[in-house]
């Protein structure tokens, strides 16, 4: 199997403009053709235009795989957590409920869990995942660490997430402000927070005008 090499996935939800290009492109992927695996999450549609593109973060210790009673979810040698193996998946929904990022999708009519596999047919041979090849705002970026540091000198990729007492490290990186000095993204810190991303972005756009 070809190697992904030094190419990495960088996720920057704050740059998402909600155009749905990633959703359309995702369904073109050969490993799950016709089924879009990316989530374009509307955060609070009534008060905000903020959207969050969510791909599989490819955890180093994937909770979805561990809680699978059928042992159907496997991680490749290069760290990509694959969609459920078709002969094994028993459609119990455990992975969907256990994933800390809310990624897997249950295809009830097929009795099969499907999820983002970083377009393994493409990334395993050195091509970009479909979503990153069409994202116009750079919310989804696939490239080398040197490229992303050159492009976004004020940002820093981190891959550590905190969920209560549980720390999860991932293959996919999230872009955070370099000067914030954070070691991880504390997801539960957003429990009581309102959407901010695009509101902040629109403010800055209007300030520039």
């Amino acid at each position, binding site marked *: 199997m070809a190697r992904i090499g030094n190419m990495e996935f960088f996720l920057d939800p704050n740059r998402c403009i909600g155009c749905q290009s990633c959703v359309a492109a995702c369904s073109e992927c050969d490993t799950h053709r016709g089924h879009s695996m990316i989530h374009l999450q509307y955060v609070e549609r009534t008060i905000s235009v903020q959207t*969050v593109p969510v791909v599989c973060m490819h955890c180093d210790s994937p909770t979805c795989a*561990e809680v699978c*009673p*059928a042992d159907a979810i496997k991680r490749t040698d290069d760290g990509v957590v694959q969609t459920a193996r078709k002969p094994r998946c028993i459609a119990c*929904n455990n992975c969907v409920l256990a994933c800390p990022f809310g990624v897997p999708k249950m295809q009830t009519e097929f009795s099969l869990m499907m999820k983002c596999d970083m377009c393994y047919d493409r990334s395993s041979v050195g091509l970009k995942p479909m979503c990153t090849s069409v994202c116009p705002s*750079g919310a989804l970026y696939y490239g080398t660490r040197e*490229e992303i540091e050159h492009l976004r*000198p004020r940002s820093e990729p981190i891959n550590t997430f905190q969920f209560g007492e549980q720390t999860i490290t991932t293959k996919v990186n999230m872009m955070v402000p370099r000067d914030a000095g954070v070691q991880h993204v504390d997801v539960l810190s957003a429990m009581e927070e309102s959407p901010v991303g695009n509101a902040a972005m629109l403010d800055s756009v209007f300030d520039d005008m």
Partner: protein
Amino acid sequence: MFGRVGSERVVGAAWGTLFTSILAILIVVGSRNLQHFDAALVGYTFAVLFATFAITYRYAMWLLRPPTKRYWNRGWQLFFSRRYFATNVVNWFRRVTADFALNRFIFKRNQSRGMAHFFIMWGCILAFAITFPLVFGWIHFETLPGDLNSYRTFVFGFATTSFKIHSAVAVLIFHGLVWSAFMVIAGVMLAMRRRMLDHGAAALQRFAEDFLPLVLLFAISITGLLLTASYTWMQGYGYDFLALLHAITVIFTLLYLPFGKFFHIFQRPAQLGVSFYKDVAAKEGMAACRRCQQEFAPLLQINDLIEVERELGYRYETDTPGVEHYQRICPACRRSMLGIAQGELWRNGGLGVGGGEWEKSNHLSPTPHPPRPTPHSPIRID
């Protein structure tokens, strides 16, 4: 003394020994103290005994995994619960017919995949149903006393129906393995075609996991057909060699059964238990998300999942007020919170959306282009 893994292996080995012993006893009893046991098939018998041990061992080890153990126990518990038993029995027949006999869910995934699986599955079931009872001596045929044109079938040594040896029924019965071979070959061809043409399958498939089972099924079927061809049309030419070749392919497959893709044959029926679990759990009440207050999953499943995660060593417990465990939050809110949490970091520490970077990229287009040897359109899919 052995540790957790060691004791699990002992449990697995004990179950394996038990099932293998039961099968061995049934072979002796069913063949009437090996009276009807065909010694020429002894290689097959030992391969089946080994496969039985290994499959039981692996199945027992699989059931000891925390999530599997929990859903296995819960599935049986809920299936036999007095309140839902009648509904469960009706659903059992419905699901066995639709999902197992007709492979409905596989056809929904893809017609070609469904056809391939249907042919392979029924071809194999037919072949197993014929081969194993013959190998074990559970079924044998005898000519009727005084009537050399009729055969009587004996099952476990008990006489059953008889039939004329030149009748259509006889042709159908004695060529049962030929029909099954045709079915398996048709299924293998369809499966192989998909694997050779489908780009998605090409990226994920591996030889040992995906191609070897098809190669083995094809080898068994074709060598079996050659045996029939040899004794029917070629006066038994090369029969001994073909019989040996056929035995090797079958025995290798039997030994491979517990280790590769074929294990799903034994694992898959667990889907039934899970479906009852989901049915009953949904009726027992739903869990509401602690963030959006929307119902999102059966409460029983969420509680079980929390216990399973604890057994596996995960610590999703939180001190956030109202959320004692991260599992109490629905997947949609998890996705929203991920975006909000990142946005908060930028608002608090990074001057909005890295605004400086938008300016630094010096593009009207929001797409920052990395340095590349040859510029290309942002819509090109490379």
